[in-house]
């Protein structure tokens, strides 16, 4: 019963979020602020994680394919497809749900418990729309770029690590990442990132917007928001993979 209550309340909030803004100029200003704080500030985290995971994947692929019957190019191919299909979209969304999601819940939750949201409402501002809409648009816009950055730096991590670890030559690796490349895999993953971006912004915003109590409750809401966002990302990953890849 509680589940249906939350689902209903979430969609009711979305209805308020997507209503006509009071003043477009203020929303656009807020949008640029959110792109900077939620998106641009996440680039370094994406780069660091992608470089290391790319490097680790190359070593693991090389180890599991240490068979003279397998061509060396399989290491590059495996790394590329794993990055493109799953890591840079889904795994990165799970990681960013922790960073961006908890940030959104704690920011909106703190505004709720300190009456800042009530203050907006009394002024006549649609608080749900003003606070949440720019965040959703910012995250949905920035996620495909973060995905592309992640794929690029993941492949670069493999290129650096493979020859240094002595598991593959740079030439074999480069040949591998060009072998049997299907551009649709990138399209499919970019579609996924749009859905994940929406979830990463809207679900934590829901938990923050409906917080009741004090600082402790904001912390609890942040944890709940991250857990629920992660479950929804995996669920949508399964559904989208079934719908778009089979």
């Amino acid at each position, binding site marked *: 019963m509680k589940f249906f209550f939350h689902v209903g309340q979430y969609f009711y909030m979305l209805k308020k979020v997507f209503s006509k803004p009071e003043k477009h100029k203020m929303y656009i200003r807020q949008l640029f602020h959110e792109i900077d704080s939620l998106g641009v500030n996440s680039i370094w985290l994406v780069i660091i994680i992608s470089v290391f995971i790319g490097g680790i994947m190359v070593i693991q692929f090389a180890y599991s394919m240490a068979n003279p019957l397998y061509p060396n190019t399989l290491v590059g191919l495996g790394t590329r497809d794993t990055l493109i299909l799953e890591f840079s979209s889904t795994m990165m969304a799970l990681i960013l749900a922790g960073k961006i999601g908890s940030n959104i819940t704690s920011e909106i939750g703190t505004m709720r418990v*300190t*009456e800042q949201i009530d*203050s907006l409402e009394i*002024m006549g501002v649609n608080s749900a729309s003003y606070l949440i809409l720019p965040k959703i648009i910012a995250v949905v816009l920035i996620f495909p770029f973060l995905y592309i950055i992640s794929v690029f730096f993941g492949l670069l991590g493999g290129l650096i690590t493979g020859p240094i670890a002595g598991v593959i030559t740079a030439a074999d690796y480069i040949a591998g990442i060009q072998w049997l490349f299907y551009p649709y895999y990138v399209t499919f993953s970019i579609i996924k990132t749009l859905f994940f971006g929406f979830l990463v912004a809207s679900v934590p915003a829901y938990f923050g917007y409906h917080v009741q109590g004090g600082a402790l409750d904001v912390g609890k809401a942040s944890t709940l928001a991250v857990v629920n966002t992660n479950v929804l990302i995996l669920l949508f990953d399964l559904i989208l993979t079934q719908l778009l890849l089979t």
Partner: protein
Amino acid sequence: MIKVKNIYKSFDGETILKNVSTQFDPGITNLIIGRSGSGKTVLVKSILGLYEIDKGEIWYGDINLTRMPEKDRKKMRSEIGMVFQGGALFDSLSVEANVRFPLDMFTNKTPKEKQERVEFCLDHVNIEPIAYKLSPSEISGGMQKRVAIARAIALNPKYLFCDEPNSGLDPETSTVIDQLIQNLTKEFNMTTIINTHDMNSVIEIGEFVLFISKGEVAWEGTNKEILHTENKKLNDFIFANKLYAQLKKEGENK
């Protein structure tokens, strides 16, 4: 002027406000007092239109708020300023940006006009220009309240609501805030409603005092009358403070 006519409000079957009727006039400070849980916050939120009342009417001048659709209520809110208990300033904005926010959102003034209005409001609440660029966390509690008042009057509202404006402040700063609200009320001829249980405020600026007990109007009058009332509920509330009990005793002995 705000008129409240026979309003009722209940939550989950429990009646919080029972047949409340009163009138708040412009140009004077109207105080709502009562014990915690007496229903004064529900009354204020009902007057603000944040709670839908079960029965009765609320009039802002000649406009009936109770029959107004939500869209028109939003427009109406630009005529209302509100000072929250904790100030409720936006953390991410500077002092001057907080005061400018309602101007940015609801007016088409030029940047110069907005800046002039911001400076006018901040000057009226005695905030020095040196504090304009500071964030709310960098200023004292008393200054936060004053900035909140400046933001509340930025759109030149007809109605000003203050929810416990003195909570968490020392007695001296409380007096300054009280005087400030009273002066602004008179200067701009606003209908000001203050929700408080601070007896110092009642004595200092209570030009009209409404005492709520168990969701009903138990007494109404002025700060001059309040110390001499025979109303038992009100006396129990006021003279729970030993200082006022002593003052009353001294007054009776004279």
